[in-house]
């Protein structure tokens, strides 16, 4: 990682560190890790695992938001994909086919959104609202209104297995984030995505194939939603069309925003978004560990998010720089005054 990239995610890293410190005050054992049966165990490991759905969604959402779009349908898409996988596994297709079907469903959902946004020209908010509403219905049709449970241990591994000591979902989001970031920055994709987000018209005029790129980005989002759907479905060993991924689209958008990415599109950082997802999960688990009654959870979470966003806002940053420079000037002036 180069210096500029590190500088970009510094506020998010600082926020995360501060949060971890805060939680540790209330619950000193937060960072303690023990080995149990070849697995690392501890609250922090739990954060890594529980972050998976939102972190995976945040990877795709970062790209969508970079194109100046938004995808509200990812929670519903998660439910569809989970239902498809559970249905296929219980029908005895075998895991590979079930996974492929689920991912295919996610890509299809992305294609639908992408076509509406890029070809038909519907505003992303409205376009994805359609699938957000319809998606749960589709998932319910697949599960026939029940919670579709399964017993396939290989599928369950996706949600709760352990690989090289760490929970499998943690590996999954880490790998996805690293791979996506590499593909974006080692090819020209990242720049092209940013350019259509900043100025689609000018980009198209310069020969950027904005339509295809937009559809591809929404399909990538669909792919991420499928992965996230698989993780939550595998974790509870059942597809719950009503609750799988419920409201997670909002957490994913929040993670991207905490990651300092502008909702107006353009420059993006996947690393920062993923750290944003970690921050959200640390807050959720931290509040529980700190022993607050559960009815406080959402309110405390909201307060912490507001504090983080305010501290990160460019205006506050400019003020802070100003005061720092003032103080430095004053010090220097005093330094000159005394021979």
């Amino acid at each position: 990682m180069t210096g500029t990239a590190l500088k970009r995610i510094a506020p998010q890293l600082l926020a995360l560190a501060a949060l971890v410190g805060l939680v540790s005050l209330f619950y000193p054992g937060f960072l303690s890790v023990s080995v149990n049966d070849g697995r690392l165990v501890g609250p922090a490991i739990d954060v890594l695992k529980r972050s998976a759905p939102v972190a995976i969604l945040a990877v795709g959402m970062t790209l969508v938001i970079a194109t100046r779009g938004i995808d509200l349908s990812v929670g519903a898409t998660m439910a569809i994909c989970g239902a498809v996988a559970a249905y296929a596994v219980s029908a005895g297709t075998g895991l590979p086919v079930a996974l492929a079907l689920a991912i295919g469903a996610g890509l299809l959902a992305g294609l639908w959104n992408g076509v509406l946004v890029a070809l038909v020209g519907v505003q992303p908010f409205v376009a994805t609202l359609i699938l957000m509403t319809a998606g749960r219905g589709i998932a319910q049709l697949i599960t026939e209104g029940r919670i579709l449970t399964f017993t396939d241990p290989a599928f369950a591994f996706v949600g709760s297995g352990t690989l090289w000591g760490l929970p499998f979902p943690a590996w999954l989001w880490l790998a996805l984030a690293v791979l996506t970031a590499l593909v974006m920055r080692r090819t020209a994709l990242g720049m092209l995505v940013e350019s259509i987000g900043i100025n689609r018209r000018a980009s198209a005029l310069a020969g950027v194939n904005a339509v295809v790129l937009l559809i591809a980005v929404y399909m990538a989002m669909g792919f991420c939603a499928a992965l996230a759907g698989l993780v939550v479905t595998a974790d509870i060993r059942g597809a719950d069309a009503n609750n799988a991924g419920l409201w997670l689209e909002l957490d994913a958008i929040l993670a991207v925003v905490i990651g300092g990415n502008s909702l107006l599109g353009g420059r993006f950082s996947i690393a920062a978004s993923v750290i944003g997802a970690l921050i959200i999960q640390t807050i959720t688990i931290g509040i529980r560990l700190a022993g607050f009654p559960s009815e406080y959870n959402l309110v405390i979470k909201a307060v912490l998010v507001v504090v983080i966003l305010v501290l990160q806002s460019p205006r506050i940053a400019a003020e802070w720089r100003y005061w720092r420079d003032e103080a430095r000037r004053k010090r220097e002036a005093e330094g000159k005054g005394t021979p």
Partner: protein
Amino acid sequence: MVLSIRSLTKIFPGTRALDGVDFDLRAGEVHALLGENGAGKSTLIKCLTGAYQRSAGTVRLDGAEIAPTSTVEAQDLGIGTVYQEVNLLPNLTVAQNLMFGREPRRFGLIDHRSLRAEARRLLAEYGLDIDVDRDLGSYSVAVRQIVAIARAVALSGKVLILDEPTASLDAREVQMLFKVVRGLRDRGLGIIFVSHFLDQVFDLCDRVTVLRNGRHVVTTETDALDRMALIEHMLGRTLRDEVLHNPPPDRGPRPEMLRFTGIGRRGVVEPFDLTIGKGEVVGLAGLLGSGRTESAELLFGLRPAQTGEARDESGKLDLPGPRAAIGHGFGFAPEDRKTDGIVADLSLRENILLGLQARRGWMRPIPRAEQNRLADDYIRRLDIRTSGKEKPIGELSGGNQQKAVLARWLAMNPRFLILDEPTRGIDVGAHAEILHLIHDLVDQGLSILVISSELDELLAVSNRVIVLRDRRHVAELTGAAISGEGIMRAIAATEGAPA
């Protein structure tokens, strides 16, 4: 003397935007404020309107020292401002805009009848008879401009500042506006007029003040000043006169490279034929709205043509969209740089390479070393002034943005380049540089279509000029027939006749 400024200084961290500037405004004069980008015109105006507080110096209005801290305070003191982008509310009616904040009231409620009557009375003074109940946004920029002036004068009434008021008006609208401005001058207002258009300055203004690098250069009666002297004052160096006022070299008949026949689209441009020679500059002249830009958009496939076809020596060319046009070796630098040209938050380097990268495809990124080499090369060749190639292009000046858009196309090595208003909103120095550049490119064999509303510019670069009127191509001038008078006659010849 209605306004008297003495040794006005404004210091920003690192720069002196204004450095001891003196400026006087008489009652009943139109006083032009001129200077290149960065000369300090806007800073001076902002110090007057209360947007900035001056660092030193005095400003006296009718003999009393003033230091407004907000535009409202400046307005109450008597200084009104109208900007290029009219600062009114397009979704309110004309009457509401005129009377905003001082609506006549009856029993505490707005009295709509006297509101309308008052608005009509105000506009009548400007010879404007329009429906004051319609939304302001439904009227042309010129009308909005006059409404803004009427409001500013009604609110302030001593000094009127017009900041680039004519930038988006066509010739007739400009005259309409000037009539209003002259009327206000005769009523005794002091008017400060900021504009890029020297012709308009000579047409309208009684006196001229030139600023350069934050300093006062000269103030003089307009009659006592000729064009070249004025430009010299602004640039501080002699403009290469031959660039602006000599015809382009006679390049002789050029071998035909592209032939467009019957290209048209209903309601946009009537079908027209156009041939482009290799190494030739073709100019498109016409008034605003005559179909110049639309013609170019059809040629580039930006709007699909309904009729006609394009051919080169190898055969028929399909033009379903910009990507296809780029594939045929076309390039298009649009008129509105901000919305259609630059990608503001990307760096200068990325903006230069965007087109090339898009053509190569995302799988084949241009290696970073190659990117740096290309960007540095074009920054040097086109003399783009920047503190570095990683600077976001939105932070560069208009002229440098335009050069970067040109660099983007040149990096793709096109054979046919369309330049729509390539020097709009660019200061005089960069203007001459871009005209020079056009000559150089054509000498290297590039063919260029130039759209411009500045006659001088067309005369300076074109080997052939095509004149448009009312969405039709009405005349083609070649060789000796190309002259300002010839073009204007071609535009006027059909003027008044039914379309």
